[in-house]
């Protein structure tokens, strides 16, 4: 009799633990990194690539997609083997998994999407060293099931990509007068459009320091809208 009761109890617990795929908690995994817990502006991770690959929007988008892809796969695979990983070498294991994934992506692109792979050439190495990926593996995937880990990966890479795209929008527009390579302000060498009126591109916008300024302005606006993010100490 008592055994039966225990069994029923256990069943209840299991039922309780089951939650819908897009429960409130899971949705938060995606929406949080977009704003309140943005990997770049709040956690200040992945700043390096935000500085380096934001000169052109196209490169920023490609980089974001690549990070999205690698982060999902890495988060899910680490989450799948999270109970097997020996604690002492967990960082090395994470590194091996991320490096392997990045190389696979690189090889497949070289074979099937040669042009994209040329576009990405410099950034592939940057993905391995992107702190966001290691950060998410260590902070989330190691302690959570594959599905939430996948959502967490999507959320974080979208949050990362969003900042990259916004920063690159301003850098490309004011640095070279273009968006996605299309001339917005006219042609600088032929002096047409705005350039005919004496407008000049801002050379600083093409250099990494301008990303710092833009990211800082982004953080400023973000904290202005949401004062709870302001650190008091």
């Amino acid at each position, binding site marked *: 009799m008592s055994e039966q009761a225990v069994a029923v109890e256990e069943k209840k617990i299991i039922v309780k633990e089951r939650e819908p795929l897009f429960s409130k908690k899971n949705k938060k995994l995606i929406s949080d990194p977009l704003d309140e817990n943005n990997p770049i502006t709040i956690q200040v991770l992945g700043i390096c690539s935000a500085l380096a*690959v934001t*000169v*052109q929007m196209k*490169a920023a988008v490609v980089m974001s997609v690549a990070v999205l892809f690698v982060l999902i796969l890495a988060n899910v695979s680490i989450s799948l083997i999270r109970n*097997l*990983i*020996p*604690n*002492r*070498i967990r960082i*090395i*294991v994470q590194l*091996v*998994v991320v490096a*392997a994934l990045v*190389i*696979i992506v690189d*090889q*497949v692109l*070289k*074979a*099937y999407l*040669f*042009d994209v792979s040329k576009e990405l*050439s*410099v950034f592939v190495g940057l993905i391995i060293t992107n702190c966001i990926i290691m950060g998410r593996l260590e902070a989330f995937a190691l302690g959570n099931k594959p599905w939430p880990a996948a959502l967490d990966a999507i959320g974080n890479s979208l949050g990362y990509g969003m900042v990259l795209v916004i920063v690159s929008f301003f850098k*490309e527009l004011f*640095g*070279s007068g273009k968006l996605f390579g299309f001339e917005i302000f006219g042609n600088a*060498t032929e002096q047409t459009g705005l350039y005919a009126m004496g407008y000049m591109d801002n*050379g600083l916008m*093409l*250099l990494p320091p301008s990303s710092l300024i833009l990211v800082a302005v982004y953080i400023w606006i973000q904290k202005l809208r949401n004062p709870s993010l302001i650190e008091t100490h």
Partner: protein
Amino acid sequence: MAINKDSNTYTISFAIILVVLVGGLLAMIANGLKPLQDENLVNEKKQNILNCLPGNKLINRDEAGSLFADYVKQRLILDYNGDVKENTLLDNSTELNNKNSYDAFSIDLLKEYKTIKDEKIRNYPLYICEVDGKTYYVAPVMGKGLWAAVWGFIAIDESGNEISGTVFDHKSETPGLGAEISQDFFEDQFIGKLISNNEDYKPVEVNKPGNPLNEYQVDGISGGTFTSVGVEEMMSRTLIVYHNYIKNLNKS
């Protein structure tokens, strides 16, 4: 059975199994995709050679594979003095062979640029092409930009004086700055520029943008100074060989 995950044995065996699995997987993938990747590289080289010819800018990579023999009539290897190396003159009926060191197409310029310090003993491949009945000499060039290699293909007209078209590419120059050398606006500036006053070789200069230009000068990339200097250096160093070859050919 409970396994002690903190034991040395478990840790070491986990590491070994993981590395063997991942290593094997990567080796398999790399081997399986190698033929496709090689084909892409070969076609890209063909495409670059065809793209620098006048009016051929739009040929894409897939078309280049089959159109190559229609345009490239002969290929050969020169030495530093501009003389044809023995047995290297092949016409378009000979299949491209990446393994045959007598085939101009097989020459790995990047490797030679890195390993052979003395430019006088490097190989100088040349592609003799024909477009609308006119002959063009396509010369590959290889040098270094800010971060890594930059390279290009330069089409020279039959007189050996004038550049008819260029294609540039790079491994990892900065997007928006040095990487702009592969854009049309930069490449097209070279069309009609001279490399010779009909007698002596005179290299093309890549200047800081904004200054008036003569027929031996083009605008560099603002913010991409190192890359622009690299383009100038590789062209000036290499084109003299091809200039001498064409001049000698026209004399005889």
